[in-house]
């Protein structure tokens, strides 16, 4: 086969062609640019979804169907990681990681300080997803980080991984059910079950509920993944 140098040269040439194509074509965007959907969101987003944060409005209302399956990607990945990592549920206990000789005391002290702040910040991001940047996905990731820190603080912390996986799956079912509620109240599936006419204060109920459920689901999912990885790491 080719020598590694000539292979690299071919690769560089091919990359150059691809980047050249992008550079040559993106000029067209100026004349083609169509922002009808963006304008639609700016004009109607607030009144139709009741969300100040238009990203949350799109995520939980206009394109809720996508969000369900994006949450599903994490769901499947969690189960896949657990299945493929060789150990069974029984011996997956992450307390080994708190090795006194490896984790500096300073780190542990600061972790105690950071843990409540991080958890509170995660909850804040989840609960205010409809008002300010953030939402269930982002806040859930923050909360999961806080839980990860917990393992540094409490050396003997034990996790029943089977239980958190079950909770995660049940939360996913709950998300789908809440999303489906609109089928009964407004006879169309996967949108806010409160009609815009009912007033914004009621629409927010739906947004917060779904954000909390998604946040919890993401936190539990990430928690499971790093619990599975902790054991593998050794």
């Amino acid at each position, binding site marked *: 086969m080719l020598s590694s140098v000539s*292979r690299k040269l*071919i*690769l560089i*040439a*091919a*990359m150059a*062609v*691809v980047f050249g*194509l*992008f550079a*040559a*074509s*993106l*000029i*067209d*965007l100026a004349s*083609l*640019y*169509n*922002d*009808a*959907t*963006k304008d*639609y969101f700016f004009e109607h987003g607030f009144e139709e979804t009741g969300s100040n944060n238009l990203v949350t409005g799109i995520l939980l*209302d*206009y*394109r*809720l*169907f*996508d969000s369900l*399956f*994006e949450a*599903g*990607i994490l*769901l*499947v*990945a969690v*189960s*896949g990681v657990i*299945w*493929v990592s*060789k150990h069974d549920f029984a011996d997956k206990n992450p307390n080994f990681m708190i090795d006194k000789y490896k984790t500096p005391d300073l780190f542990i002290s600061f972790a105690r300080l950071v843990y409540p702040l991080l958890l509170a910040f995660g909850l804040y991001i989840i609960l205010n997803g409809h008002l300010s940047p953030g939402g269930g996905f982002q806040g859930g990731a923050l909360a999961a980080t806080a839980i990860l820190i917990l393992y540094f603080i409490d050396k003997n912390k034990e996790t029943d991984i089977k239980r958190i996986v*079950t909770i995660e*799956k*049940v939360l*996913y*079912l709950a998300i*789908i059910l809440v999303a489906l509620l*609109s*089928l009964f109240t*407004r006879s*169309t*599936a*996967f*949108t806010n079950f409160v009609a815009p006419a009912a007033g914004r204060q009621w629409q927010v109920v739906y947004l917060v509920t779904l954000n909390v459920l998604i946040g919890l689901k993401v936190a539990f999912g990430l928690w499971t993944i790093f619990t599975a990885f902790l054991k593998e790491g050794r």
Partner: protein
Amino acid sequence: MANIALLLIFLPVLTAIVIYVLQPRRSHEIALVMQAVLTVFAVVYALHFQADFSETLIVIGGWEERIGISLLNDRLSLPFVFMSLFLWWMVLIYTYDEHDSSPTFLFFLLFLQGVFMGVLQTNDLFNLFVFLELMTIIVTVLIAFRKIGSSIRAGIYYLLINTAGVLAFLIGVILLYYSFGTLNIAAIGGEMAGHGDYRVIQLSFVLMMTGATVKAALFPLFSWLPKAHGAAPSPISALLSGIIVKAGIYMFIRLNDMFAPAGIEYETFFLIVGLATGFVGAVFAVLQTNIKELLAYSTLAQLGIILVGLVVMDGYSGGLLHVLNHALFKALLFLGAGLIVVVYRTKELAKIRGVAKSMPVTTVMMFIGMLSIAGAPLTNGYVSKSFITGALEGEPLLYYAVFLINVGSVAGFVKLSAIFFGEKKLSYPFSHIHKVLPLVLIAGACMAFGLFHVPLAETLLDVDLAHVSRFTLGGLLEFLVMVAFGALFVRFVLSRGFRTLARVGKFRLAFETANYLLVIYLAVLGVYFVLL
């Protein structure tokens, strides 16, 4: 009525999660009941199909069509829906007794079915991306399901290559969204006219086609397919070759339909890609010594013929017919091969002999599958192959190229057929009715598609096959000539054991090379479609 489209997606997904959480003892029965319910709903749904999509178009959330996500079933997606329902039935019956890992396996299997229904029905580009991503992850886990080193490596190989392809697709989606301000496939297709000269549109065509090429395992981005088949459990191989690879073909058709008003001339390029895929598949299939890898490479040969059929014929008719037929006989062959591998405890062709005596029913079914894939008269393979070659009459060069691919794949199956002859070596007690039942059912479907091809093609694909007869003397003669060629080749070339041939057969693309090929393919496609 339109909400049944959502049911087709969510019923398998919800059942999968319930099975995973509760881990009930009768989980397989639950799955079978769910499948029966799903089939009933799908049939009712199809009976209500209207040509103006009034019953099969649904905009989720009740938004405007350009804003929200919509699901759409047309004459293209419905045959795929039913074919996947059928194959999932077969796999569910086939895996009935695998108790040890049943709930987890069923979780992934059923979730995959729901997601696959989503891929088929969605009318939204970003939604398609989400489903493709989800499909990639689930298939990865299923390939690596045995948790041995080689299967995990094959799974990761599949995951990385396919994710790269799907990301290329995503960049194409972004460019289109920027240009049209919507993600609705039908709406973009409607506004595509006159956009063919813009380089952005051409570039997004290139990027999206790269994604479809990886998913469909076409030349030169096919290297994940033999690896995955070598490692995956047999029922998963059957699904993978039978229908999941066809998701790439399905994307190819959908995207071409969407880009068609722009007038991008893709025919010549993809004709070459198809022929190259076919040749590589046929040549490598003959040289394999592992039964599942032989079948995997023969999938490539058939994909080549499918692509030629798609590109050359009006309305993709020949290729679509061959997609459905290939789904049947390749699933049959993989499930049969799975039984043989279980009984003989080896995948090496040289070590398996006397299958006809130890497993007579399986042998008969495997022969039906082999005759179908080789294109013997009276089988479904013959119908679709002669339908495709019939369209090539005017072009002798193409005709003989397809003929050569056929000869190659026939030679592969002549080689495979050696395992059925010889003395009975094993007397493994084998009496699982549910293992053989799917083989019999799929073989029956193969025969049905061969014998009643005219009404079946009319109802499923809206294609008139009246001019294609299921049996002609010339066809039989041609088939016999192919078998003779194949037998001569196997007898006088392969059995000599040339070392170079064996080495070529063992050749596998390294992961690094596969990545290089992805970038080079992207560059070549770009130069061809954007610059020239």
